């Protein structure tokens, strides 16, 4: 096994021929000191070939290897300099998906004396380049012998000696997590210990239609209607209009692998918009207002609205107000509205005060921004005075239009995102709360979501970007169940409830 010294610490390395990695198509996972980490793996021969071609095209790079076919990937872990306030970690991988470290047959050395040069010659090395400040580049006849040369020079106490690595750096494209992370993050297992949802609690999804024939949604459907097209009592979407199907799945998919948050609840599907075939949405104020009124009159306890951004409309605002005040026999329907994805001030209807305006968070419990750690640098959660709370909004597992239409060729997707996905998460949590305690008023649901939200990013109180924090379904449902008794009327304290491991910050 090869090794070298970095930051004063010796690190064990494994070397794997680039071509072999490609041929095996092996997913290289190492269980080193840093724990299991996804390592670099060229996905296709063309990727390895492109690396080889690139090196061959450079006189300087190609001179670092006698035979480019022997390119070798370096794997292992090196010490990490801890950031201020960060927890100490044991190491970071040398090769990752974004940085591929390739060993060469060369060593960089400084401060060599004549005797050192003679020793390297005896080892079989030759100087192939000299540079500023006494740096020399030594070459041996194989990658494996590089590490022996480094050891030899360090034993002779030269100024420095280190392997000369090449690095292929690519832009990092994030992959979806292997599990439905969002469920763990919001403590769904604990919430489900209270209830998985009651069929008496109806959740309305107002969107571009819902695939109400989807095997995971069909059993939940109790009412559906088209308010924009010609489908009458069907809310089926047209073409690839999959947005509503994804939103509905987050609330109440009954699939075992892709379950919704409140799979025991019932679905009201209202089609209020349709794609224009050109990344646009068509909707109409009056019809949307009528759809809102129809939903709460159909008994919707929760209305999930993953849309917005048009011109404000009193017809829509007033319909929402009726839902909030007259829904559920006067207890009020819970209205959840997406904040929007432009990382700008929240627009209509999310800017209406008094509703549950929802922003997005990521797996590391950060507010989703264009620079947050999830890597989706093309969108960020909107912000403003009506922000109530955040919920998971990246890499969300949910239903897709069944069959080839929609986001994926199958019946599900793992990459739904946006405040569009965060909003039905809150809608689902609210549905569980009302399933646990149907006597809760809409104000109580709002307050409980506020007081149980997990404070993130060192927030002390409400902020326009984070609202009251990130949805904690476990606490919200647990407190909802016992709400109403005099002792439970006070806001839950920070220390209440045991911290779930899933809620811990990654790396902690």
């Amino acid at each position, binding site marked *: 096994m090869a090794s070298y010294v970095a930051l004063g610490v010796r690190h064990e390395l494994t070397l794997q021929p680039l071509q072999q990695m490609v041929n095996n198509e092996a997913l290289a996972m190492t269980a080193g000191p840093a724990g299991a980490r996804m390592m670099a793996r060229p996905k296709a021969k063309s990727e390895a070939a492109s690396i080889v071609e690139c090196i061959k095209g450079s006189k300087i790079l190609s001179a670092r290897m006698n035979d480019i076919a022997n390119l070798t990937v370096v794997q292992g872990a090196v010490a990490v300099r801890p950031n201020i306030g960060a927890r100490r970690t044991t190491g970071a991988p040398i090769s990752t998906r974004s940085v591929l470290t390739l060993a060469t047959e060369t060593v960089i050395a400084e401060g060599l004396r004549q005797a050192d040069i003679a020793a390297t010659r005896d080892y079989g090395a030759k100087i192939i380049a000299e540079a500023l400040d006494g740096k020399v580049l030594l070459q041996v006849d194989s990658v494996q012998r590089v590490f022996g040369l480094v050891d030899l020079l360090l034993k002779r106490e030269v100024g420095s000696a280190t392997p000369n690595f090449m690095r292929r750096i690519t832009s990092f494209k994030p992959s979806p997590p292997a599990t439905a992370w969002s469920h763990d993050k919001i403590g769904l297992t604990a919430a489900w210990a209270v209830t998985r949802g009651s069929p008496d609690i109806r959740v309305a999804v107002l969107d571009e239609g819902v695939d109400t024939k989807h095997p995971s949604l069909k059993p939940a459907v109790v009412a559906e209607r088209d*308010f*924009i*097209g*010609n489908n009458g009592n069907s809310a089926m979407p047209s073409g690839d209009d999959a*947005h509503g199907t994804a939103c509905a799945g987050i609330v109440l998919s009954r699939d075992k692998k892709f379950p919704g948050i409140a799979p025991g609840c019932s679905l009201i599907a209202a089609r209020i918009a*349709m*794609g*224009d*075939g050109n*990344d*646009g*949405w*068509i*909707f*109409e*104020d*009056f*019809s949307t207002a009528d759809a809102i009124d129809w939903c709460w009159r159909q008994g919707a306890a929760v209305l999930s609205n*993953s*849309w*917005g*951004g*048009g*011109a*404000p*409309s*009193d*017809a829509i*605002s*007033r319909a929402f107000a009726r839902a909030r005040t007259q829904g559920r026999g006067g207890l009020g329907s819970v209205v959840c509205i*997406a904040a929007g*994805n432009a990382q700008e001030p929240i*627009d209509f209807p999310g800017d209406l005060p008094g509703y549950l305006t929802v922003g997005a968070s990521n797996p590391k419990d950060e507010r989703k921004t264009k620079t947050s750690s999830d890597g*989706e640098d*093309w*969108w960020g959660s909107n912000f403003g005075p009506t922000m109530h709370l955040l919920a998971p909004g990246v890499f969300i597992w949910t239903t897709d239009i069944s069959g080839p239409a929609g986001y994926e060729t199958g019946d599900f997707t793992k990459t739904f*995102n*946006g405040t*569009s996905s965060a909003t039905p998460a809150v809608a689902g949590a609210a549905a569980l709360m009302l399933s646990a305690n149907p006597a809760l008023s809409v104000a109580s649901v709002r307050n409980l979501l506020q007081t149980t939200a997990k404070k993130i990013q060192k927030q002390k109180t409400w902020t326009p970007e984070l609202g009251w924090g990130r949805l904690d379904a476990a606490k919200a449902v647990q407190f909802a169940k016992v709400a109403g008794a005099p002792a439970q009327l006070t806001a839950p304290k920070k220390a209440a409830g045991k911290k779930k491991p899933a809620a811990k910050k990654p790396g902690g």
Partner: protein
Amino acid sequence: MKNYYYAGGRKIELETDDEHVAVDRAVAEAAGLTASAIGGGLPDLRGGVALSKKSSLGDKVLDALHGASALRPVFRHDQAVLVALPEVRVEYDDLTQRNAVKKLLASDFHDAAITEETEDRLILKPRSGDARDALKMANEIFERAHPAASSVRFVQFIPKPGVKR
């Protein structure tokens, strides 16, 4: 004078959209203009209106549509393109508001017809069939009778809410 409407008690300004035209299909077809000539590939909307780029229709077709009164005004507000329809929706919170609206309509709005009425709202259409008249009516009713809401009916075209790269 700039176009506007009311929402939340505030004036919302509307820019005129010169890029698009909105066609009332029924009116156009009644005038003998075929669906293909007026953008047959566009989705049918409630209200029977289709939006088309002005540049995709020739001057001859545009003149014909204009002559047949089949064009509806198109506006912009932020990222939304709005098509106004010749219909006004008025909503009340109480009897006082309702009486004020009814009194105003009876005295000054003979050129409009009530097409639907319930306890808490009514729908009004200008006899001209012109959406610009409807916009003026909606604003005048709000400014003079002070109901809870009074707005022309809009169809909105906005960017899809998804965040695909």
